[in-house]
């Protein structure tokens, strides 16, 4: 292990980390928005879109993220899509996780007690009002810890983007290692970096989960 070497290359490694974080945050944004959309489509039972989204979820959940990224990276350009690897990868990451967030949203909608819907129905509240003012405010806090866990997973999975030439943390580490052969130093440092971010984050999410479930009782 050579700490001096690490110091020499630290700015490149940090650059890679920056790409990792960016891809994760943007990917999560995509995952949440797309997931919410899919959950609403299934809730509203919109005819064609509903079947399509179920098929999409089955496809994405049962195939490797790596295969999906390869598909985006190699196939889309031949159909005129001119995005670079970083964007293809980030979008791929977001779309992959949207299937998981969609399930999380769906579960949280269903967890809102039936009595809430019934009370709102008898009061004459429209479906839109009920959903916006009664269901969503109760469903969203419940889903935050799950989304937090997916954010952490996505942070770790962002390393797969290196397979389609994106120079995030793993990719940068690989590139440096192939030049300097300082495999042990570099890969250990990289592993510790992921660990030192993901582990505290997961403790944070666990604490958040405890706080939210101990707090306000949902009828």
């Amino acid at each position, binding site marked *: 292990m050579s700490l001096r070497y690490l110091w020499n290359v630290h700015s490149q490694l940090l650059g890679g980390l920056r790409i990792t974080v960016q891809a994760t945050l943007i990917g999560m944004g995509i995952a949440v928005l797309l997931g919410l959309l899919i959950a609403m489509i299934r809730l509203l039972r919109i005819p064609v879109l509903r079947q399509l989204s179920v098929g999409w979820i089955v496809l994405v959940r049962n195939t490797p993220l790596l295969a999906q990224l390869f598909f985006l990276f190699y196939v889309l350009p031949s159909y005129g899509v001119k995005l670079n690897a970083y964007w293809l990868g980030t979008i791929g990451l977001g779309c992959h996780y949207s299937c998981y967030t969609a399930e999380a949203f769906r579960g949280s909608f269903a967890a809102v*007690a039936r*009595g*809430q819907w*019934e*009370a*709102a*129905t*008898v*009061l*004459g*509240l*429209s479906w839109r*009002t009920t959903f916006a*003012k*009664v269901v969503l*405010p*109760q469903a969203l806090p419940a889903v935050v810890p799950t989304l937090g866990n997916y954010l952490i997973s996505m942070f770790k999975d962002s390393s797969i983007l290196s397979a389609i030439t994106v120079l995030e943390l793993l990719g940068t580490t690989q590139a440096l290692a192939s030049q300097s052969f300082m495999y042990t130093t570099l890969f250990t440092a990289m592993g510790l970096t992921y660990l030192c971010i993901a582990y505290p984050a997961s403790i944070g999410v666990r604490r958040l989960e405890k706080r939210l479930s101990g707090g*306000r*009782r*949902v*009828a």
Partner: protein
Amino acid sequence: MIVEPTFNDAERLRIEGVSKSFGNHQVLDHVSLDLPAGRRMALIGPSGSGKTTVLRCVAMLEMIDAGAIYLGDRRISVDLTGRTARSARDLRSIRSKIGMVFQHFNLFPNMTAIDNVTLAPVKVLGIEKAHARDEGLQILASVGLAEKAHAYPSQLSGGQQQRVAIARALAMHPSLLLFDEVTSALDPELVGEVLEVVRKLAETSPLSMMIVTHEMRFAADISDHVVFMEAGRIVEEGTPEEVLRSSVNERTRKFLHRIQLH
């Protein structure tokens, strides 16, 4: 200013030959009831007798398989044929005439008491927010909860939550109020405060009421007409005196005896 609802035969509730099954299990078997405007009906019976289902069918929360329910001259029951034949505006105007108080309160936990009470008047009746608020505070005062207007349901006791639920239903100025075992989920010492509110309501307001309850004395005090149901059928009906105190029907007497033993 509290708007007084107007009553006439247009508010008479008629349930005619209603039947309903859940899968293979028949819950209601040709049930017919008549509730004139301004009257109070108590539904009693063992659990599974169908009394709550009757209420839920009137509230249009359940579909019926046969028969019909009328409010005035309008058919309000929902069955497979009538389901699509109603306009949203139609539905809204019927809904605003019927209010319901649930066994488990079903208050919206993410809103304060006053917000629970004013949400529907603002969104459905189109009442202006400030006006709805004033009225809402008055109604909360009438159920004894003026100082809890800004509390969240989680900060209120069961009895207080149920009183807010009553206020919420009243804020819509219904002509018919349905009560579904409103004290069954309460700790014994909180039951009284809720029954008191309903009693006061019965005395001061011209609302029609349909009350499913296990509280026999309460049923006797408050209702004009008592209906005893068992296994989806009406076994006996009449005045409180006839059904609760001097019934000659064996099944009614058996049931009342069992309840008394508590």
